[in-house]
């Protein structure tokens, strides 16, 4: 077995499964997805081990055509971490979603069931492609694949409000990708290649390239929902079915975020942009504060979780000025902090949305003010929510703590102490909205008159995801060395 | 041969241009939609017909000639079908004045 095949398989096998899911129909597609999930997980673990042990990215030139003419896959440490995250979360979601989108033997095919499985597989393929592709146009196709897979998930339930949310999301997403494509055209015209590794060597900061980076970043921010381009996110993520919300918040926004990283610290690795990075981080800080305050004020649980996503996305952008202004260990800390934030938020937010979904199913609504009694009726669910909340707050020991601690110390190391204040303030606000839910849930009260029993598997999956998010904080710091492998902004 | 062929080409293409121009002028200047429709369907397709006719001598193979004729047939067919549809549309929208 040639190891360089692994990233290709991690992309192409889910695509093949998605294609096959269409003729197989809802029931066949469900089985195929569940059968493929362990294979995908094994591939992701394999890639992580190969990258970690080898210490260099895995590369394959497709069709033996070397860039710039051909396209290469390149799985670096960041890609390996995201692949594993995606595999774990999507696998968990697939099992969780069986209750909602499963088809019994002999039962007629339902619309939601037919659509959900190929969409989930397509989304998985798109995320994997977005992290291992090394060609700017292939990444554009990945973005579109991601949008197409995510949009119907938003309105799977078919109600008017979700359709409206889906339309708004689609418009933002399409605008974002077409702006990205514009930048691709200008970069190709300037440098004659779309391969990120080659671009990192060739690109100078001349005007067409700077304009290209500006429009591409703007487009990607619209897709990542960084404030002030976040307006589409809360209704879209809050209206979707729980399983869909979880993948949307945990993974889909991270796909376009990874592209921003590839642009700024791949294509532009030799061209520092410290001022622009300050602006990005400023937007991130505003997202942290305003998003958290908005979450505090929400009356509905799923909207609260969605606004929490807006806030947590803000943390991801704090790494930009720290990386732009420093080198060596401080920059390494900032990079690791950002990536760990992306990963730990993915697990925590998936867990949180699943828990919110379980509660909403049990209570028949998700009004926070009427959640009293949840603690007694569904302790595991509330515990899941609490654990995920702790990770989001950054309470030690958790993945969120590791991420925020790394960012904090990088901010101090880089002499940009003001970001440290933002991180601390954001943590407090996060504590506020998580506490609000927990306090209400622990209050005595009666949930629903005749509650349907929650399947223990569903609770178990949500809890497992929350635990992963916490356990990330126990990993020795050396394990995070993985994400440093293959960074283009430090390699000679 | 070549001189004669070129002469035919020039004549026919020029005539075709006249019809195209006439079609456009009709489309722009005629007062109502119905007469514009007449101007268009007549002039436009005669224009293309003459251009095709003019290009025929320039073809050096039978396949090329057939292909050119196929264009004309295709456009005439489409026009024959859409003309009445447009006229009906006009009636329904009350556009005949």
């Amino acid at each position: 077995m040639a190891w360089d095949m692994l990233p290709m398989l991690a992309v192409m096998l889910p695509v093949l499964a998605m294609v096959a899911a269409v003729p197989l129909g809802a029931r066949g597609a469900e089985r195929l997805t569940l059968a493929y999930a362990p294979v995908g997980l094994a591939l992701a673990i394999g890639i992580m081990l190969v990258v970690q042990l080898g210490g260099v990215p895995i590369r394959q030139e497709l069709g033996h055509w070397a860039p710039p003419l051909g396209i290469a896959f390149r799985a670096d440490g960041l890609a390996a971490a995201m692949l594993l995250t995606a595999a774990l979360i999507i696998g968990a979601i697939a099992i969780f979603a069986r209750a909602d989108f499963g088809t019994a033997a002999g039962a007629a095919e339902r619309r939601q069931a037919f659509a959900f499985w190929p969409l989930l597989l397509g989304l998985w393929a798109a995320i994997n492609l977005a992290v291992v592709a090394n060609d700017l146009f292939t990444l554009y196709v990945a973005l579109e694949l991601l949008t197409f897979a995510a949009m119907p998930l938003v309105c799977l339930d078919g109600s008017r409000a979700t359709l409206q949310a889906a339309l708004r999301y689609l418009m933002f997403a399409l605008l974002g990708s077409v702006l990205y494509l514009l930048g691709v055209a200008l970069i190709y015209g300037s440098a004659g290649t779309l391969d990120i590794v080659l671009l990192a060597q060739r690109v100078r900061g001349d005007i067409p390239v700077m304009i290209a980076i500006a429009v591409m970043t703007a487009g990607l921010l619209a897709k990542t929902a960084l404030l002030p381009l976040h307006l589409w996110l809360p209704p879209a993520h809050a209206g979707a079915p729980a399983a869909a919300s979880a993948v949307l918040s945990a993974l889909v926004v991270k796909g376009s975020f990874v592209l921003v990283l590839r642009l700024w610290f791949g294509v532009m690795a030799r061209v520092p942009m410290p001022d622009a990075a300050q602006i990005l981080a400023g937007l991130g800080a505003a997202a942290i504060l305003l998003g958290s305050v908005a979450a505090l004020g929400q009356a509905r649980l799923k909207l609260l979780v969605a606004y929490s996503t807006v806030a947590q996305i803000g943390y991801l952008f704090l790494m930009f000025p720290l990386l732009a202004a420093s080198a060596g260990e401080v920059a390494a800390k900032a990079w690791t902090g950002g990536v760990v934030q992306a990963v730990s938020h993915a697990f925590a937010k998936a867990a949180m949305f699943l828990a919110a979904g379980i509660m909403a199913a049990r209570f028949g609504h998700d009004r926070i003010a009427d959640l009293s009694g949840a603690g007694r009726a569904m302790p595991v669910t509330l515990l899941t929510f609490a654990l995920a909340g702790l990770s989001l707050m950054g309470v030690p020991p958790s993945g969120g703590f590791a991420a925020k601690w790394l960012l904090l110390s990088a901010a101090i190391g880089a002499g940009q102490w003001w970001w440290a204040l933002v991180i601390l303030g954001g943590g407090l606000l996060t504590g506020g909205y998580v506490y609000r839910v927990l306090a209400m849930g622990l209050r005595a009260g009666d949930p629903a008159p005749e509650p349907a029993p929650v399947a223990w598997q569903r609770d178990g999956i949500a809890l497992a995801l929350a635990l992963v998010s916490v356990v990330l904080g126990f990993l020795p710091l050396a394990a995070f060395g993985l994400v440093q492998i293959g960074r283009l902004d430090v390699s000679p | 041969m070549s001189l004669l062929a070129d002469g035919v080409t020039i004549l026919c293409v020029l005539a075709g241009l006249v019809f195209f121009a006439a079609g456009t002028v009709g489309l722009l200047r005629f007062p109502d939609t119905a007469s514009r429709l007449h101007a268009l369907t007549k002039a436009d397709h005669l224009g293309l017909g003459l251009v095709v006719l003019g290009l025929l001598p320039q073809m050096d193979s039978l396949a090329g000639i057939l292909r050119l004729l196929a264009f004309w047939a295709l456009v005439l067919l489409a026009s024959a079908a859409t003309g009445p549809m447009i006229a009906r549309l006009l009636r329904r929208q009350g556009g005949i004045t």
Partner: protein
Amino acid sequence: MTEFLLAAALLVLVTVLGGLVRVLRGPADADRIMAAQLLGTGGIAALLLAGVAMAAPALFDLALILAVLAAFASVAMARLAPGDDPREPGP
């Protein structure tokens, strides 16, 4: 000869682009459909002239596609225009 044909192609283009005014101004939907049709026919004529002049068979294929799809689009426009037979739903 080549120059003559290219000039003719240009002239066809000039005349049919004049028809654009009708597409832009209407006023009836039928006007727009007709002007678009004229644009299609003119485009085909210009492509044929240029194709012969430059001995480029690709332009012939383009004209062919244009002819087929212009027919398709004209039919669709005439059929889907608002106010046309309400018994007929569109795609």
